[in-house]
C-alpha cells in the first residue's frame, strides 16, 4: 500500500461521498491507501468504543414527526448531527437504537450521567473526525498531485 501518489482523476464530490459512506474511503479511491486504512480503523474504533461505553441507545435520531419545525426537532438532539457524519454506520446504529427503544426488554436500558455524556462525545467526535477526513480527501483530490 502506498500513499505517495494522489489520483486526481476522481471528482472531489465522489471522493467526499465515498468518505461519508465509509470513513477513509475517500483517501482509498484517490490512491492513499495507508491513510485510508488508518483513518477508517481509528474512526470506526472511536465510534464503536463510544457505543460500547454507553450502549447503543446513545445514538438517537431526532423525532422528525414531533411538534415544532424540523430545525427545532433536529436541535433537540444536536449530537446526532455529529453522529450522522459517520455515514451509514451512524444510521444503522440509530436504527438499532430505535428498535431497542421499542423493545419491552431493553426500552429502559439507557446510560445516564457521565457514561451517557462520554459515549455521546465519542460517537459525535468520531463523526466530526470523519468530516475532517472527508474535507481533506476531497481537497487532495482537487489540488494535490503529490502528497
Amino acid at each position: 500500500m502506498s500513499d505517495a501518489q494522489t489520483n486526481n482523476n476522481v471528482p472531489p464530490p465522489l471522493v467526499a461521498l465515498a468518505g461519508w459512506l465509509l470513513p477513509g474511503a475517500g483517501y482509498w479511491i484517490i490512491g492513499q491507501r495507508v491513510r485510508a486504512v488508518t483513518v477508517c480503523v481509528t474512526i470506526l474504533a472511536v465510534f464503536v468504543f463510544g457505543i460500547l461505553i454507553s450502549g447503543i441507545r446513545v445514538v438517537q435520531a431526532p423525532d422528525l414527526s414531533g411538534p415544532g419545525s424540523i430545525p427545532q426537532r433536529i436541535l433537540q438532539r444536536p449530537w446526532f448531527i455529529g453522529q450522522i457524519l459517520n455515514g451509514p454506520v451512524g444510521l444503522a446504529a440509530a436504527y438499532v437504537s430505535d428498535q431497542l427503544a421499542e423493545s419491552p426488554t431493553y426500552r429502559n436500558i439507557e446510560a445516564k450521567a457521565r457514561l451517557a455524556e462520554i459515549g455521546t462525545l465519542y460517537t459525535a467526535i468520531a463523526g466530526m473526525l470523519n468530516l475532517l477526513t472527508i474535507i481533506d480527501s476531497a481537497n487532495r483530490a482537487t489540488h494535490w498531485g503529490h502528497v
Partner: protein
Amino acid sequence: MLLQSPADAYVPFVYPLPIWDYWPWLILPLCAGVAIVYKSVKCGTMKEVPREALVIFVWMLVGFACAAGALAGVVRWVVEK
C-alpha cells in the same frame, strides 16, 4: 441505568459498560483517536504520523491535566472563600 436483577445480564453494546469508577481513564482512547486522525490529515506522509500523533497525544493530556488542575484550584478557592 443499573442492572436490577441477575436476569439483567450484561449485554455488550446494549448495556453501558460497568466502568463507573474508571471513567476519567476514558480520555486516553479518545485523545489517541483524535491524535491519530488529526495527524493523518495534517502530515504529508504517513511515516510521520506515529511520532507526530504521539507528541500531540502527550500534549493533549498535559493540556487536560493543566486545565483540570486549574479548575480544581478555582473550585477549591471559591469553596474556601
